């Protein structure tokens, strides 16, 4: 009888300790998930911030001014543009519209420009 009592009380104590530990661990894990979630939120904010900054820096007006003023670039004009068409079946590339002779004429000044050095 006494032995049974001792055994049971030992069990009880063990269970109680187990409960305390598991509760402690549950709370610890909970705190960890909280922390992870907070970090996720922080990263999200950081991502939003970077996205805004990227857009602000890649603004078309900014690039346009820089390209024109600092790099002295020119807008593409149709006279200096060759349109290439990729054949969907055999993947060969050929000159597209405008008409072939116009395209050929367009190649010439481009080629001349290349030999003469890039026009500024």
């Amino acid at each position, binding site marked *: 009888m006494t032995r049974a009592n001792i055994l049971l009380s030992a069990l009880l104590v063990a269970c109680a300790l187990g409960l305390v530990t598991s509760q402690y661990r549950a709370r610890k894990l909970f705190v960890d998930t909280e922390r992870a979630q907070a970090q996720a939120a922080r990263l999200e904010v950081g991502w939003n911030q970077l996205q805004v900054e990227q857009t602000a820096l890649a603004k078309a*007006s900014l690039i346009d001014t820089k390209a024109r003023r600092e790099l002295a670039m020119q807008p593409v*004009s149709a*006279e200096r543009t060759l349109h290439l068409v990729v054949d969907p079946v055999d993947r060969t590339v050929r000159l*597209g519209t405008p008409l072939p002779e116009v395209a050929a004429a367009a190649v010439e000044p481009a080629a001349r420009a290349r030999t003469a050095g890039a026009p500024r």
Partner: protein
Amino acid sequence: MTRRSNRNVPFASNPLLRVKLPAWRSQVVMLMVAIAFVALAARAVWLQVFSQNFLQKQGEMRYAKTIELPASRGKIFDRNGVVLASSLPARAVWAIPEEVDATPRQVASLAKLLDIDERELRRKLSEEDRSFVYLKRQVDAAVAERVAALKITGIHQQPEYKRYYPQGETFAHVVGFTNVEDVGQEGVELARNPELAGRPGSRRVIRDRLGRVIEDVRAVREPHNGRDLALSIDSKIQFLAFDALREAVQSNKAKAGAAVVIDARSGEVLALANWPTYNPNQRGQLSGAQLRNRAITDTFEPGSTMKPFTIALALELGEVTPSTVIQTAPGRLAIGPNTIGDAHPHGPLTVEQIVQKSSNVGTAKIALGMPARKMWEMYTELGFGQAPRIGFPGAVAGRVRPYRSWRPIEQATMSYGYGLSVSLLQLARAYTVFANDGELLPLSMFKVDEPPSGQPVIAAKTARAVRQMLEMAAGPGGTAPQAQIAGYRVAGKTGTAHKRDGGRYVNKYLASFVGFAPASDPRVIVAVMVDEPAAGKYYGGLVAAPVFARIAGDSLRTLRVPPDAPIAQLAVPESTPKENM
């Protein structure tokens, strides 16, 4: 057991204690104890029954807490995922004036950080009768941290969101803006506010000694972030349109201007630019003129840009064919007591040439042969007189009077765009019938997944015939050779409308151009309006057509549309459209 009982002398029989005491004394003690117990019981009842709620609340306050879960406002993107509006956390800095205890140096540095006048700040902090005063709202997180580092007692912070518009003035009228409470005030921010606004959630938690959250007490009410929106606008085309428009308005010393680019196949608005504009990130002093989205909220008498519709109707009714000859000499036409005239007198013109040369007399003559009801029906079917359903605030209907009240002179002037009013967006939309083989497309400010079905207004054959006339109008011999784009065939119509001031037409003009390209298979419709050009030129063909050429050319290049015209055929010198301006 026996040993213990032997040692134990019965307590009551102890001779030492045998003292005679009056019985009432023990009774008094008994009574006192009883009263004490009763008092305890009463107190227990008081605490556990009557003040239970209060005490439980107080107890909970010490470990449980309700946390607000903020929801962020949805972002606005362009059609390619470029951010147009985004919310970032910011802080509101507020104070309890009574509690503020700051040295003059602290106040000075606070004023500097918050960028407010020091005297103003002092005044706010000395308002003793108020227990709460905002010092500044929407302070950047970095600045807020430096404010917190000053450690002034009585100065507090509260998290909130600030809306950023990285594209600035280019998109101001489309995107709009929100107020400090994060509620949309203009543009898409206003139109789609319910969708964009998030729904904040909350959770009830238990905190431990260190203030860490350790348990949820009840189910979390999840916050719902606002939905992200993708507009139909292409930020590159928007910039190109905006830039071209700004340059045109400034070089023509005009009052204002607007430009619209529409995808001719899907009805999506690719660009919507206005000048003057404003920076939505710094809205210090804004005037109504800056805020107005002219392309949508302003109506004007369109002038000659209406002629193609009159001609289209005449072709539909079989009244004329493109080659029917109409006498327009001597360049004026008397209708009752009134006379209408052409800017330049022409002789006999075919219907095609009437559009090409933009003859008022010719158009009026054709219009007077048609029933007023048919014209009114045509205008109504094209969407004039009704606000376009594009889900945008302030879209106006314009004005088309009921046909029963039309006098002949009015019918004549309406045929070339006077006596009715339209918005630029309505006009651009109406041109989808020519670009789209007779079908009118619904417009959309938001990305559409599949092209919407159009509503047939005129026959495909008529649309193609008018398209050819419009191509002539934009070509050599037409009113707008400057609308030409290298490598593409263009079609379009100029408009030069006298403005009305106090009921009379005055020498102020509104130059416009509506057209599309490539003419062989239209991809973009571009409408340009320049209000009161004052630098000498005022014809639509000289003021608005070059803007059209620049916007349409750049848009087609951006959309990678293959050219449909041999470059040698060009009527305009082979310089770029930009240099040509």
